[in-house]
């Protein structure tokens, strides 16, 4: 009876990776909308994690995001990712205005065994993710206005021994001059732990 109960509550490594990638996908889309990077009319409302989330309808954005997230998922299963940075920069001057860091930690057993399972209930994980997504939406109340045309890029911090596909290239990390940092809530799937931090340009 106990084993049956455990298997019901268990979350697999693949399931955990999917949750993390879903969070990143909806988190990035929420940031793009909340920070006004793209016009609001290019977003549609979808229900995820018990929340109404605004997702971009721009095919070019989706064509950029999907391969990145798919590749990330593979690296995540191999435990090769340390963090992902979403860098928002001024289109004209290339100055970095804002950086969202999604930091990953691998919990449970240290190996990348595909059969490893977590012990956290899905509803609990979804509630935690919902809380972080809510917090992302509420950051608009204190983050400074991005009053210049901005673009975004995703930078993946991986371990040195990662196999890099042809479409990927090595790049320099992005800094923000005079930055202030805010740690948002974390969530854990019991296999992966995700910390979200936003750094923004503070005019002193």
């Amino acid at each position: 009876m106990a084993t049956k109960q455990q298997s019901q509550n268990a979350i697999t490594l693949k399931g955990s990776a999917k949750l993390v990638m879903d969070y990143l996908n909806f988190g990035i889309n929420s940031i793009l909308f909340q920070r006004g990077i793209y016009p609001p009319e290019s977003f549609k409302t979808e229900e995820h994690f018990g929340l109404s989330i605004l997702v971009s309808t721009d095919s070019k954005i989706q064509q950029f995001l999907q391969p990145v997230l798919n590749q990330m998922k593979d690296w995540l299963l191999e435990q090769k990712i340390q963090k992902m940075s979403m860098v928002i920069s001024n289109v004209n001057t290339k100055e970095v205005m804002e950086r969202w860091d999604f930091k990953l930690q691998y919990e449970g057993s240290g190996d990348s065994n595909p059969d490893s399972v977590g012990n956290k209930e899905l509803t609990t994980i979804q509630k935690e993710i919902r809380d972080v997504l809510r917090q992302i939406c509420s950051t608009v109340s204190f983050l400074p206005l991005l009053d210049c045309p901005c673009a975004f890029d995703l930078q993946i911090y991986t371990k040195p021994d990662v196999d890099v596909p042809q479409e990927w290239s090595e790049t320099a990390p992005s800094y923000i001059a005079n930055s202030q940092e805010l740690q948002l809530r974390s969530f854990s799937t019991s296999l992966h732990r995700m910390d979200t931090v936003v750094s923004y340009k503070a005019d002193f």
Partner: protein
Amino acid sequence: MSQFSYVNDLKSAVRMDEPITSGPAPRWMKKSVESTSSSANTSRKTNELMPIKKTPSKTPNKSKSPASRSASNTPAKPKTPGGDRFIPSRMSTNFDISHFKMNQENENLDLSPTQSDYRKAMSENLHGCDINNVRVLSYQNKAPAPPDGYQNALKVVYSQSKTPMNVRGATRYIPHAPDRILDAPEIVDDYYLNLIDWSFSNILAVALGTSVYLWNADTGAIDQLLDLEGADYVTSLSWVPNGNLLGVGTALGPVQLWDASQTKRLRIMNSHSSRVGAMSWNSHILTTGCRNGQLVHNDVRQREHIVGTIQSHTQEVCGLKWSTDGRYLASGGNDNLLNVYSGLPGQATYQSEPIYSFSQHQAAVKALDWCPWQTNVLASGGGTADRTIRFWNCNNGQCINSVNANSQVCAILWSKTYRELVSAHGFANNQLTIWKYPSLTKVAELTGHTNRILNLAMSPDGSTVLSAGADETLRMWKCFLPDPNKKKEHEKRSSRPTMLGPGLR
């Protein structure tokens, strides 16, 4: 003669519009000479591999000399199979990365162990990881830029990108935790009762079951004022506006009058036969409302205290408030009615029938308060089925505004310090909400009570709001602390000598 030739040489040397005849030959001339002297075998091979290039066609030639013209006509044959020099494509070169890589290679030279450790720690702090132990990768196909001419729509939300300093200073700090929590064991959890009141002399009266306790906010001393006997219990309390008299309503109907300074009961007024849930003072008149919907005006100075009776509610009166100027009386009942009456018995304006009877609320109207700076404006709040706060102009009987509070409204108080009001609520958050008036935007929500809030009272200085909850706690919230700058200004103004001189009292 020789001097002329010297002058001519000098002139020709400084003239800028003639071709240079002496000095090293131009590069394209050298190349053409080299190419003609090279073997035919090599040139044939090269011609098979790639088309012949005339270097002068690439190198701008501004010289108009015959020599240059003839040279440009001769076909240039490359010296080596590679052709002209290699010019790299700069479009595909990422100079930022190159610079970063070059610096990274050279940065650790001649560093002491301490410096390298410091650098490593700094790097880890900046990047959240050891940058030498990670690869930073990005997808080569970049995300699209926003459409041309697109302006961030959030500009509307922000009036300007930087908040002006004067505005920044204007937003006051409201503590979201209570300043003090007092126990209120056995406080009766009944929406229709009014069990707390804060006096002019800073004494808080609290009804706990059959007893009334007085808490001195200055000294912290607690005294029991009275204890009812039998099945009776306290149902309402009300201090006379500028004194130590306390009206005590009971479940059996009699209203008691107590002098708190002497802990002495002055009289009992048998105005009602059912419980008195609401009371309000207008000078020496104590108006009481009871369970059967009746209102009674009691003149506490007279032996025959009943000076007027009003029967306009069909169910229990749970809210009762005289306006600050004494012109209007508002009563709210369990029949969902809000009635407004004019004047006192004996006055020319007095009417025993309500001048306005508002039926817009969809639940019992307990929460009532008159605006201190607009004495004709009344705020009222409805119970669970209504959940709205409405604002009324009692000069013309119009509903000025309304706001959905999303939960049962248990009490309302206007601030004496700011153009704001505070409302107390029940399920689900049991919170106090501070509203700006007249915009009705939420200033703050103060949570902490674990059960619905029953009543609110305000300190005499207007800085502190006390909430009594069904969780048997009294919580003090310093939500209307005066602005220190305004306070200083006020003190300066009051300390200024008057024109009338010090002798006049």
